[in-house]
């Protein structure tokens, strides 16, 4: 049962990722990314991390993707020209992607991590639920938590400054 669910979610994630880079219209790319994110949430649930899965669905598929859809609707699709500044880029890039995948896999699988071939240790039922994550965030990782909140504020202010109409330069 778990294997079936894993393969369905893996095919969804991979198909979504390929859809993102293959679609001509950016709007369809965003929709493919939403499929990818939902499949990843299923994978997170299989890894018994309920809070990360819920945050994935709410934050990514809910908030960030809505932002993308708004900007795509505002800017418009627009096709890409077939002109290539680097000759043979379309054939060289997939080769480099395959090489990177093989290299990453060899680097991880060739390491001395014996626990990779297990399902992980047996964990209690509270593993990865919001209470456990919240306790870790507010006790052990309080400083990164506060730093990320300041970063979010800075990013929001920066985006407003970037996207606002600048009367002096235009």
């Amino acid at each position: 049962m778990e294997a079936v669910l894993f393969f369905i979610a893996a095919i969804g994630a991979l198909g979504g990722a390929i859809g993102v880079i293959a679609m001509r219209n950016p709007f369809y790319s965003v929709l493919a990314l939403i499929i990818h994110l939902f499949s990843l949430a299923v994978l997170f649930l299989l890894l018994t991390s309920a809070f990360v899965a819920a945050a994935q669905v709410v934050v990514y598929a809910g908030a960030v993707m809505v932002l993308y859809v708004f900007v795509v609707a505002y800017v418009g699709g627009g096709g890409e020209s077939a002109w290539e500044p680097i000759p043979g880029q379309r054939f060289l890039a997939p080769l480099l992607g395959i090489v990177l995948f093989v290299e990453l896999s060899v680097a991880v699988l060739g390491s001395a991590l014996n626990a990779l071939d297990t399902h992980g240790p047996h964990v209690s039922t509270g593993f990865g639920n919001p209470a456990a994550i919240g306790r870790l965030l507010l006790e052990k990782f309080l400083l990164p938590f506060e730093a990320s909140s300041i970063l979010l504020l800075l990013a929001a202010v920066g985006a407003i400054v970037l996207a606002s109409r600048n009367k002096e330069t235009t």
Partner: protein
Amino acid sequence: MNITWYIVLSSLLFATGVLGILIRRSPMVILLCLELMLNAGNLALVAFSRMVGNGQGQVFAVIVMVIAACEVVVGLGLIVAIFRRKLPLNVDDLRELRG
């Protein structure tokens, strides 16, 4: 399923994101491919967290999610600014900063 499967899937997704950045030229799709790479990293973090049986990797994944949201906000702000100035939305045409 073994943890190995998750790690191999994560590296496959990461390579897909890199491939997208190499072959696409619209800044918006490049941002989407950055999201793919960040999510592949998140999957690896959560898988390793399950392997060790420790929740700290999941906290790391949540922080990575926050960073990704910030990156999206600033990147989309840049795209809107480029569009407002009537510049082409193509990374090959936006080459003024090139030396």
